[in-house]
C-alpha cells in the first residue's frame, strides 16, 4: 500500500431501502463514486434525504451497499473497521451512565486497546478538545457543545486514520459551531487525519473542506465537487474572506434547485434500517 492509495474509495455505490418493485422502495443513493486522499477533509453537502449520511455509514461499514464497493486503504469494506475508522454522530451517542472519561475508555475497550494505556490516552484526547476539567462529569451535565467535543475526543482516542463525522455540529447554535469548526481545522492541521464531514451549512462546508461534494436531490448522486484551495489551520480571516463568499455563492447556486426539488418530495428520511435497534439475533450486526 503506497501513499497513492486513496484513504477512502467509493465506486458506483447504490443504496436502496425496501425490496425491488415495492411501492415504498426508496433509492437513497445512486451510483456514487468518490475518492478521498490521505489527510484530506471532504465535506458532503446536499438537501435532506439525499444520501449523505447513508454514504458515510457505507464508508464506515455500518451498512452494506445494495450495489457497488467501498475500499478503505485499498481493502474492501465488509463491516465496521474500528481500527481504521472512527465516527462522530450528530445525535448524542455518549453512554449517559458513564463519566466522560469512562466513555472514552469504554470506546477503547471496544476497540481492543490494552487496559493500561486507556487512562492516559483518554486524558490526552480530552486535553486535545479542551475538556480535561470535565473528565469526571456525566454527559447529562455537559452543554450541547461540550457533548459534541466529548464525542470528538472519544473518536480521537481511538487513534484511527479516518474520522467520519455525521453533522456533528448540527444541533448547536451557529456561533458555537463556528468556534468548534476553527478548533477542528487546527486539529486537522496537527494530526493529518482523513476526514469526511456531512453538513447542512454552506459556510461550514467551505470553511472546513479541502473539497466539497455536492449532492443532488433524491435519488442522491454526487452532482459536482468544488475544491477549496486553502491551507489548514484556517481561522477568522478565511471566514470573512471574499474567497469564501464567492465559493459559498457558487455552492448556493448549485444547491438551490435541488433543495426546491426536495421540498416537493414527501418527507421521508430512510436513514439506517430499523434493525439497528439491538436484538440478540442480529447482535447489532444487522
Amino acid at each position, binding site marked *: 500500500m503506497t501513499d497513492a492509495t486513496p484513504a477512502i474509495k467509493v465506486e458506483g455505490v447504490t443504496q436502496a431501502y425496501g425490496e425491488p418493485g415495492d411501492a415504498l422502495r426508496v433509492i437513497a443513493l445512486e451510483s456514487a463514486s468518490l475518492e478521498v486522499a490521505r489527510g484530506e477533509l471532504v465535506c458532503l453537502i446536499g438537501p435532506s434525504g439525499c444520501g449523505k449520511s447513508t454514504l458515510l455509514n457505507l464508508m464506515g461499514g455500518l451498512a452494506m451497499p445494495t450495489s457497488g464497493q467501498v475500499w478503505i486503504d485499498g481493502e474492501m469494506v465488509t463491516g465496521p473497521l474500528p481500527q481504521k475508522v472512527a465516527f462522530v454522530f450528530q445525535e448524542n451517542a455518549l453512554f449517559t451512565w458513564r463519566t466522560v472519561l469512562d466513555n472514552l475508555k469504554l470506546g477503547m475497550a471496544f476497540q481492543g486497546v490494552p487496559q493500561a494505556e486507556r487512562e492516559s490516552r483518554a486524558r490526552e484526547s480530552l486535553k486535545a478538545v479542551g475538556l480535561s476539567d470535565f473528565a469526571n462529569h456525566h454527559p447529562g451535565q455537559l452543554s450541547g457543545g461540550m457533548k459534541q467535543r466529548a464525542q470528538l475526543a472519544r473518536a480521537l482516542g481511538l487513534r484511527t486514520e479516518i474520522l467520519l463525522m455525521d453533522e456533528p455540529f448540527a444541533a448547536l447554535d451557529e456561533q458555537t459551531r463556528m468556534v468548534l469548526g476553527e478548533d477542528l481545522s487546527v486539529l486537522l492541521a496537527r494530526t493529518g487525519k482523513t476526514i469526511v464531514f456531512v453538513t447542512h451549512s454552506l459556510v461550514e462546508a467551505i470553511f472546513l473542506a479541502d473539497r466539497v461534494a455536492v449532492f443532488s436531490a433524491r435519488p442522491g448522486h454526487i452532482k459536482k465537487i468544488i475544491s477549496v484551495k486553502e491551507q489548514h489551520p484556517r481561522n477568522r480571516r478565511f471566514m470573512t474572506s471574499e474567497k469564501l463568499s464567492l465559493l459559498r455563492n457558487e455552492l448556493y447556486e448549485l444547491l438551490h434547485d435541488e433543495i426546491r426539488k426536495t421540498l416537493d418530495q414527501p418527507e421521508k428520511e430512510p436513514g439506517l434500517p430499523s434493525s439497528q435497534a*439491538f436484538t440478540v439475533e442480529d*447482535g447489532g450486526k444487522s
Partner: protein
Amino acid sequence: MSGSRLAQRLVQLGFLALVAVGWQITAIRGSVSPLLLPPPAAVYREFMSLLTTGMFWPDLKITLFELAVAFSIAAVAGSSIGYLVSGSRYAIRVFDPLFAGIFAIPAILLYPLYVLFFGLGPGSKIAIGATIAFFPIVLNTISGLSRVDSAYVTAARSMGASSPQMFWSVMLPAAFPIVLTGLRMGLILAFLSILGAETIASFSGLGHQIAGLAENMDTASMFAYILFVLVIALLLNLAVSFAEARGRREGGLSAGNSATGESAARTKTKIKVPPTVARIGVVGAALVAWEAGARLFGDPLFISPPSRVFAAMIHLAGEKDVVAAVTITCWELIVAFVLSLVIGLAVGLIVGLHRFTRGSIYPIILLLYAMPLATVLPLFVIVFGIGAASKIAFGVSHGVFPIIMAVAAGVQNIKPILVTSARSMGASRRQILFSVVFPNMLPSLFTGMRLGMSAVLLGVLLAELYVSQSGVGYLTSMFTQTFQPQNLFALVAVLAAIAVALNELCRASERRLSRWQA
C-alpha cells in the same frame, strides 16, 4: 416480514393448544386429582351451563353495581380534588407527593377496617374500590392539568383567552389524555380490588362465588367462574381502551413534553412555609381531627384515636405472636420478591432481546397481566396449601409482571445510535449486551423493582387475608373479628410504614441511578 408474523401467531396458538392439551391429558390420566384440576371439557360444560342458565347474573349484577358506584365516587372526588390542587403550584408540591406516597400503600390492608365500618355487604366493597381508584385519578388529574405545555397557555393568552375559555378550550383538552389514563387505571383497579374484597370476605359477588366454590372443592364450576370473570375483565379492558382511544382522538392534543407546570398554575400566592413542612402539617391536622373525632363521637368498638393506636403499637411490639407474625410476613415478602426478580429478569430479557419472542410471547404475558389475579387466589390455595408456599406463590404472581415489563421495555428503549456507535468502535455482541444494553436498562429495572415490590406486598397480604394461619394478614383478620380496633390500626400503621419505607428505598436507589440521566 409477514412470514415471521405468521410464525409468531403460530407460536401463540401452539402455546395455547399445548396448555389445553397438556391440561386435558393430565386430567384424563389422573396424575393430578380431578379435585385440583378438572378436565377442560368439564370446565367448558360448566361454563356453557352457566351462560345458558344465567346463573352468574345475580353475582355479575352485584359486582358491576359496586364497580359503577365505586368508580363514580372516585372519579368525582379524584378529578375535583385534582382540579383544586392543580390550581396552585404550592398545593401541588404539598399534596402530590402525599397522594403518591399513600398510593404506594397496599390499600387492601384497610379492608378489615372497612368491613368493621361498613359490614360485609356492598358498602365495604364500594368503599375499598373507591379508595383505591381515587389515587390514580387524582394524581393524573394533577399531573395532566399542571403540565400543560406552557406554549399553549402563552399562545391562548396572547390571543386574549378569558379564564373560562382557557380552562375549557386549552387546559382541559390538553390535559385530557393524561386524565383519561388516570380514569382507566382507576376503573381497572376498582374492578380488581372489588373482586379481591369479594374473595376475602363478602356475602355476594363474583369473587365471593369463586371463593365459595373453592371451599366446596367444586373446581369445575370454580374454573368456569374464573373463565367468566376473565372474559368480563377482557371486555372491560377492551371497552375502556376503546373509550380512551376515542377520547384521545377527540381530545386531539397530546400533552407537551416541555412540561414546566409553571404557567399552568392558576393562582400565585406567596407562602413562606416549605412544602415539606406544610405536608407534615396536613398529616398532623388529619391526626388531630381523627383523635378529636374518635374521642368525642367514636364508638370505641370500631374506631380508636391515634394516641391509643400508638400505645397499642408499643404494646404489640412486645407481644411474641405479633413479632412472629411480622417476621413470617417479612420472610414471605423477601422470598417472593427475590423469586419475582429472578423470574422477571429472565423472562423480561428473553422477551425483550429477541424480536421473535417479543412478537409471540409478550402478548400472552400482557394477557396474563390483565387477569384479575384475586379470582385465582382460591386456586393457589388449593394447589399450594394454606402455608407459606401459597402466599409466596401468590406474591410472585403479582410481582413478576411489572418486572418483566420494565426489563423488556428497558432493553427495547435503547437509542439505536448507542448501539451503532458501539458497533463502529468494534464492540462485540457480548460487549454491546453487557456494556451498553444492560446499563441502559438499569433505571427501568429499578422502577420495575419498586412496582414489583408493592405488587408482591399486595399479593402476599391478600393471600394472608384470604386464608392463612400465620402472618400479619391473619392477625389483622383476627383483630377485626375480635373487635380490637386499636391493635388493628396499629398493625395497619406498621405495615403502611413498611410499605412506604420500601417504596422510598427503591425510589432513592432509582434517583441515585438516574443521576446521570439528564
